[in-house]
């Protein structure tokens, strides 16, 4: 068994991404060493000091620009936590330098960018992983149910994944009538497209259990937040997916507001099989913790500096007992590098995943189902 220690370069702590969520796993793993933090020179004003503070906290140097840092001999893995619009460029550059890729959620902002990453990874023969989708308990327990064969043949899946984050406000009629924003632009200062941000997890589960998705339909114009409504950018959406065998997957996802759910938001799947049906709660296993002081003194508000709670969570009366999905993903990446194998979710999976999301958005805009594979130039 190899005991080689791999050096990781952390590219950006953009608050549109989740680099901060990966850190603990990198620190905890005995075969990982954080080499430094790097970023581009032309970044948002808030970001450079934030990157610096993380570098200081971790006791590692901060590098600009990224391409010089990526070429360092002590860097084996590049962890890309930049804005979605910058990821494909960084990923292609890093793969070209022979580095393995750990990428947050999406490899590009459109299918062309995703394809360029897949091509670069194939050409370089490096390993890639997107750790966010298939290592969590909802997916792992669902997979366990399917593997048990107790369900028989899988007929369909329904998934509800919602975040009880952010503080909704009343929405005036004029604002509610905004036209739905087509896909393409993902970065906004005040909000995220939530089918992309949260629905992506549900798609990750369905694609793990189904064959290739062949058709997608969606809806997304009921709103919780004025800031989403006035831009016509969904904070909640539903999708229906069909795979090549005709199996039906349905999804409800969104940011539904703080205080609307005791344990973070619905996070569940129902798997329908020919022999039975299974309900999987992604919030379990857990300890329920009902403490008097938490009820009596409950006066929680989302923090002013993070009103949509991209980087914070409301308190929960439960204690998670699940394994950390990031730690499991890291084990998978190291296994893949050691043994020259694939991870469970590579850039190819990420490209297909983005295709499904884009199809969902086009379906909402056109109010009709969209077939896959998607041609990027689908008119909106």
């Amino acid at each position, binding site marked *: 068994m190899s005991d080689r220690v791999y050096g990781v370069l952390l590219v950006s702590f953009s608050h549109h991404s989740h680099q901060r969520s990966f850190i603990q796993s990198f620190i905890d793993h005995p075969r990982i060493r954080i080499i430094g933090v790097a970023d581009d020179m032309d970044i948002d004003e808030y970001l450079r000091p934030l990157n610096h503070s993380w570098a200081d906290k971790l006791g590692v140097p901060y590098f600009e620009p990224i391409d010089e840092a990526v070429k360092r001999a002590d860097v084996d893995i590049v962890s890309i936590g930049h804005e979605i619009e910058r990821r494909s460029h960084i990923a292609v550059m890093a793969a070209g330098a022979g580095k393995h890729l750990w990428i947050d959620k999406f490899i590009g902002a459109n299918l062309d960018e995703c394809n360029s990453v897949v091509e670069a990874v194939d050409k370089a023969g490096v390993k890639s992983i997107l750790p966010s989708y298939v290592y969590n308990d909802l997916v792992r327990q669902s997979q366990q149910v399917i593997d048990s064969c107790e369900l028989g043949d899988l007929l369909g899946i329904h998934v509800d994944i919602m975040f009880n984050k952010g503080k*909704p406000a009343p929405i005036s009629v004029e604002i509610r009538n905004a036209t739905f924003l087509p896909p393409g632009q993902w970065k906004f200062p005040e909000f995220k497209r939530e089918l992309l941000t949260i629905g992506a997890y549900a798609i990750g589960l369905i694609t793990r259990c189904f064959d290739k998705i062949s058709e997608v339909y969606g809806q997304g114009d009921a709103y919780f937040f004025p800031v989403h409504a006035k831009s016509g950018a969904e904070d909640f959406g539903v999708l229906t997916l069909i795979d090549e065998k005709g199996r039906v997957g349905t999804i*409800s996802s969104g940011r539904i507001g703080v205080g609307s759910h005791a344990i973070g938001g619905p996070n569940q799947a129902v798997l329908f099989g020919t022999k039975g049906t299974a309900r999987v709660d992604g919030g379990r296993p857990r300890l329920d913790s009902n403490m008097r002081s938490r009820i009596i003194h409950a006066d929680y508000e989302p923090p002013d500096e993070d009103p949509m709670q991209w980087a914070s969570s409301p308190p929960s009366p439960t204690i998670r007992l699940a394994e950390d999905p990031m730690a499991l993903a890291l084990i998978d990446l190291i296994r893949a590098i050691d043994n020259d194998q694939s991870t469970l979710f590579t850039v190819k999976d990420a490209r297909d995943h983005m295709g499904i999301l884009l199809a969902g958005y086009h379906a909402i805009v056109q109010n009709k189902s969209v077939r896959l594979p998607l041609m990027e130039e689908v008119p909106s």
Partner: protein
Amino acid sequence: MKVPKVLICGYEDVLSQIPGSILNGPSVFPVSLSQVENSNQGCAPPESIVSIVETNHLDLCVFLSPFYEMRNTVLLCMEKGLRVTTIGPIPFAETFWRELTELTNDNKPHWRIDDDFYFDSRLEPLKHAIHHLDFGLPVYYREISFGGLNLLSNWWKACQLYKKAELLLGSSIIDLHVSANQTGNKIHITLTFKLANRSNGHIICTNSPFNEDGDLLLIGTGGVLDYDGLLNRPLIHTHRGIKPVSTNKGAQVQSWWEKNVGEKDICIKALPEKKQIQNQGKILEAIHTSIRNRGIIQASIVS
């Protein structure tokens, strides 16, 4: 007071919910569709039903389950001057709406859909919660239900939940996409819909084993309402695993019977709406097309 003579028709799983005190009454003629289907060919009314209708002076025919010969069977009952109550739509009835709803020579409507039969004890608490507990504006309705043994039963259940969604969300469904999958005799039907108030929903009906009380999720801008049928019943640990205690639906059915059929004159006051019949027919058509094409079908409903 005259005790009405009633034909009750349904599959075993539905008939078994009817209390024995009703089913074994001297003026009640139960027919199991499971047995009828085995002996019947084509779309002619099943012989056992024809025989009961011809030889007994019935007042009312109650159809608790759908079947492919139902349209002609109902027409036969109406030709005989009988009142008909169906607990869901009649398959392929949309083009026969006139025949099914026309006034007969007694100038009274003869057919009604009484799908309140399926409405459960959760409905009133749910309505109360939506209207009085800071639920806010409705955003999403999702209900998963065991819809019965066959495709038509699941279609009935889907139509029922469609109506329930409109009732709970306080708006009309204006857009409907249907996806369905059939593997062997296993059915999975999904309705994805949008309402006029911009809320959305999923209705999922299956004949795979599922908890009989269903699974409901309602999202409003003010919070979440959910109901898990399994968690709301006693569970027994047995040598063969964990088993939920069956819900006793007898009281609910008894109450429906007394309200609608019992010892009183049978009077059908409201005809099914033409729009409703058309939409329900379109849902069934879309289910068949989706299964055939393995695709998502937009049902051109009238709202």
